[in-house]
């Protein structure tokens, strides 16, 4: 396998593991996909296109990611639900100076406790990845949702 398809295989496996950790409710494993200083943001395509910086989730450290998980486990109250991520193929945009830039489309269904199943979000992950402590990790994962609208609330990270 040449290095380009090897990188694609790595990214595909990484994205699959990322989605599994969230969908299987192993949220405590989610921060480990990121570097110590990182950016994780959930925003809309409209805000992204206009260069508006705010996100409905905005973390710039691994500590903030852990706090997001703690808040969900210990503080926040919401009706029980789960996600199912369906991911498209990662597109490798560039590989330069140790940073891989990639874009991966996603569709997340939300399944409520009464069984209602709906498309909750679609969009793309805009990623910057680096080799960190023996693994490929996200230095940046900007979740750009196609829609500016959230149904009811967003509790579990995308």
């Amino acid at each position, binding site marked *: 396998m040449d290095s380009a398809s090897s990188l694609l295989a790595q990214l595909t496996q990484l994205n699959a593991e990322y989605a599994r950790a969230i969908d299987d409710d192993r949220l405590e494993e989610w921060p480990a996909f990121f570097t110590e200083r990182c950016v994780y943001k959930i925003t809309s395509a409209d805000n992204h296109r206009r260069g508006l910086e705010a996100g409905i989730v905005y973390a710039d450290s691994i500590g903030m990611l852990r*706090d997001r998980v703690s808040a969900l486990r210990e503080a926040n109250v919401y009706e029980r639900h789960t996600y199912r991520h369906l991911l498209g193929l990662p597109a490798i945009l560039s590989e330069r100076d140790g940073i891989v830039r990639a874009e991966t489309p996603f569709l997340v269904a939300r399944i409520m406790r009464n069984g209602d199943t709906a498309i909750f979000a679609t969009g793309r992950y805009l990623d910057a990845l680096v080799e960190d402590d023996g693994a490929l990790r996200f230095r940046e994962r900007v979740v750009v949702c196609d829609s500016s609208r959230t149904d009811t609330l967003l509790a579990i990270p995308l």
Partner: protein
Amino acid sequence: MPTREWPGETLTRVPYWVYQDERNYQDELRRIFEGPTWSYVCLESDVSRPGDYRTTFVGEMPIVVVRGEDGAIHAFENRCAHRGALIALDDCGSTGRHFQCIYHAWTYDLRGDLVGIAFEKGSHGRGGMPASFCKAEHAPRKLRTTTLCGLVWASLSPDAPPIERYLGEEILGRLRRVLDRPVQVLGRFVQALPNNWKLYVENVKDTYHASLLHAFFGTFRITRLTQSGGIVVSPDGGHHASFTIDRADDAVSTAYRDQGIRSEKDGYRLADPSLLEAVDEFGDGVKLQILTVFPNLVVQQIYNSIAVRQVLPKGTDGMELHWTYLGFADDTPDLRRLRLKQANLVGPAGYVSMEDGCVGGFVQRGAAAAPDAVSVVNMGGEGTESQDTRATEASVRGFWKAYRRYMGH
């Protein structure tokens, strides 16, 4: 048949049918949203140059808000006088000096006056509009607009008083305190809520629930009912502002633990608490202020997270909440970053607003089979006066006082 009666004069009892009844909802649209009230529609900076427009709603009426050639802000119903189609089809944009309906190219100026009809004189001497047709008599309804603190409101009624009088001195002062200089939009988000619009407005006015429902608040000492602060309710009850003041001696309160309430969690600490490092940018020690303007606007200051929230009713059991996150043009990079981090507290994924997204739906569903049962709103007594405690439902009763007056109950 449910009775649709109010249980007497008291503001402490609210029947659940008000969140469910379709005819009552249609009355609300007419008497409140199309009545002598001001509905927030957009920021002044959203329509900064002539031709800039934004589409939104007043109640369920689609409207266009546009900066005119004369510099004034106009608003009119987004309905072509011909066959009723939407005239403007996007969220926002910039048109020249006209709007043109795509259906038959009927043309409007920036005031919403009909100025052009395709084939008005017919084609090859045949057809066309009758000679008696007068364009001036055909136009979508116009709304008055008013601007204050960079916010634009619209009203369909000539009887809505000037905005300063509508707000009253105290609420006006609290608004000016936060929005005293040019704003910058940091992001826009929409939250679709599965509940009647009034359930959300009540929730925002309800200072009683804040540190009980939102465990994040109580645990991280952002606000507790034992902190000093208070509420201001406008004379007619419709508007309110609640605020919390930073005080050094709150550290030792055990009132929560003594009551064994869920939101008190020992040993729960943030790994990265930097989002709670607030800056006293307004210089008065008030670290939290939530302000509502009847019927559809919330202006928040939560530490340094500033936002406006617009309530749009969508039927008896749904609504949209349009969030606009704000900063100021003179923000330093550090303050700007602090605002972006503190935005984690609010919005559809907010640490302290997440529950507000679902609790309205819990009420809508909980009361589904009890239209004639009543909600009990007795905290802090029976009145609607401003108080120096937030352990009260006075501002919720204030909402019902204003509501019943507009509705003629």
